[in-house]
């Protein structure tokens, strides 16, 4: 390894990248666009759920219950229902997601100190929201009804994310997804371009070793990727007001490993094909889709079937997403995250070894 030769490759690559302003803008802006789109759009928080009421009772008690729903912040009264047909229609059209049915005897029963019942009908199309909505409805009804004699007193404490905002969870995960979306694609296209145009033959004819070539290519793309990290982490934490509990230095140190890992994946993809289109599709299948769907970013891994958990473990996204969340949300230190960080490091070395090996085979 000769440091001068590596720098020469880096200089050449940097010059080529700087001549292509479109690529630079895309690589710096797209991550931010994704951050904002997904930071806002991917939320499973439930608020202002449109609900309808079929009040057969029309007593002060029933009105108090309806008010409790409307003022909870979770529900918004949009429809007053009278009759079975109207109820069916409102739910079917999706005008309301929840219907509260209060029977005629409701107020009278309560006034006499007798237990009563109300019906809560929830649109179950999106099962997850339905469950949360039904839970809130339960809680509101209990809160609004006169106290009875409880036998249990549950004390609930939610740690790390007490307000249960999903953006606190989404943003630290997005760091991992965005970094797996762009650097590999950029790197792969950068190398395959030389293959397509044939200029790679000149490299092979020079005294440059494959390790030096890879290292030289790595530096500029690694730098771009690291700037992306800074932008995404900076904007993500400040704009979305995600509370940061851990050590920023540790997060950046592990991000650096991850950056090399993603760029290495791009290099590996570039050794598999000679065509830019194929390189792009491969980058999508090997990096973007798994990072979005199988990294635990949105869909928790522990609920997947075992074989698909193994599939998820074959991609680096999972390790970084977990580490990033542990550091940002739980304030975890190296002692807690070393398993994932170590896995990431080992993964990165394996990727580079594979890329260099595939590359050398081509030369011979």
């Amino acid at each position: 390894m000769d440091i001068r030769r590596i720098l020469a490759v880096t200089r050449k690559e940097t010059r080529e990248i700087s001549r292509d302003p479109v690529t630079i803008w895309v690589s710096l802006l797209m991550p931010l666009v994704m951050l904002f789109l997904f930071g806002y759009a991917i939320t499973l928080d439930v608020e202002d759920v449109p609900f309808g009421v079929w009040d057969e009772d029309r007593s002060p008690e029933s009105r108090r219950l309806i008010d409790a729903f409307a003022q909870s912040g979770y529900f918004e009264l949009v429809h007053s229902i009278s009759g079975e047909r109207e109820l069916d229609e409102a739910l079917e059209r999706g005008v309301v997601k929840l219907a509260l049915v209060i029977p005629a005897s409701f107020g009278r029963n309560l006034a006499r100190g007798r237990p009563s019942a109300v019906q809560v009908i929830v649109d179950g199309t999106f099962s997850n929201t339905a469950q949360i909505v039904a839970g809130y409805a339960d809680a509101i009804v209990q809160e609004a009804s006169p106290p009875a004699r409880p036998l249990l007193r549950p004390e609930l404490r939610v740690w790390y994310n007490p307000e249960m905002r999903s953006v606190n969870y989404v943003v630290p995960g997005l760091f991992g997804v965005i970094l797996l979306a762009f650097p590999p694609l950029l790197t792969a296209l950068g190398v395959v371009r030389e293959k397509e145009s044939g200029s790679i033959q000149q490299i092979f004819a020079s005294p440059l070793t494959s390790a030096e070539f890879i290292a030289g290519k790595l530096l500029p793309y690694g730098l771009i990727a690291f700037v992306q990290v800074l932008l995404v982490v900076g904007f993500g934490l400040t704009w979305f007001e995600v509370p940061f509990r851990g050590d920023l230095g540790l997060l950046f140190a592990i991000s650096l490993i991850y950056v090399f890992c993603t760029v290495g994946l791009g290099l590996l993809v570039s050794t598999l094909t000679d065509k830019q289109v194929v390189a792009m599709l491969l980058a999508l299948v090997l990096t973007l889709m798994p990072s979005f769907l199988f990294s635990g970013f949105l869909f928790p891994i522990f609920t997947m079937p075992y074989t698909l958990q193994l599939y998820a473990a074959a991609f680096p996204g999972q390790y970084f997403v977990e580490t990033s969340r542990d550091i940002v949300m739980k304030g975890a230190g190296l002692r807690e995250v070393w398993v994932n960080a170590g896995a990431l490091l080992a993964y990165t070395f394996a990727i580079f070894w594979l890329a260099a090996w595939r590359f050398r085979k081509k030369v011979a």
Partner: protein
Amino acid sequence: MGRRFGSLLVKETIQFCRDRAMLALILFLYTAEVVMCTVALTFDVKHVALAIVDQDGSPRSRELVERFTVVQEFRAVGRPATEAEAGRWLQSGRAAMALVIPRGFARRLSRNEAAPVQLLLDGTNSNTAAIARGYALGILGEFEAERAARLGHAVRMVRVERRIWYNQSLSFASFMVLSMIALASMMIGVIQPAASIVREKEAGTIEQLMVTPISVAELFVAKTLPTLVMCLLAVFPSLLVAHAFDVPMRGGLGTFLALTGLFLVSAISLGVLIASVTRTLQQALLVSFFGLFPLLFLSGTMVPVESMPDALQVASQVSPLRHYMEVILGVFLKGSGFEDLWRQALALFVIGAVLFASAVIAFRR
């Protein structure tokens, strides 16, 4: 003119069918992808890692613990000795929830006093946490109600009868199957026509077509009709997949196919539009990728549109996929017909018409 158009259509159809990779991709997206994502991706919460701290150690407390360990929503991972240790388990991720039953639990219960029970919950994943909390409170509520029934008094003054409509078993699978079918239609509908037109541009054969007496309109229709037919046919294997996952088909097949066709017109027009403004295959792929990506995930395919901020909800109105998602969920899960879905149909029609018109204009140039 009919013959000219016919022969062009035959050529396009042959070309379409010869593209093995594309056909394989279509079949893959409509079946394997649907299956894989449906099996793996779910927001349903099962097997939440639960740490149990039973400081009471009485038959009563064991009864409560057992209620948590027998259901599949929770998976007992161990019994830390103290609450502080349970906290450390939460910190290291070994457990996601801890149930702490303090000393004196049974004694208080027997005296009919309210006995405290603690639940510590890892809130990092707010969604999982909210659902796990619901399960836990449900189990506590059952325990309480059964005990109250034995004592002969009510614990709650108002009982909530909960009914879930359209998806009684509350499985995410039916949503995911339908969502992936819609995604597949969108991707193929946009990428296939875009790639097929740009390829002719790159190869230069489009010039040859331009000098023939074939009109632009004929060329346009011939280019897009095979995709439309293919995408409609590709829906059928997906219907089998949906059937295999026990997704009910409550509405009419005719309604579904008609509205799918209407949706595909928008998707295909978008593809032609992309092909008209790009020059190389790579550009076309990049543009459709960056254009599709937000469109795919912001249309209620992964997370419901209702929980997005208002501005994005308004913006999502222009996405044909958003309206199509409502159609496909409505037809399958709710059994909606045209009379319920006319709004979505109208929206699809308007979006389709606008996209189609701009595609024809851009294509003519």
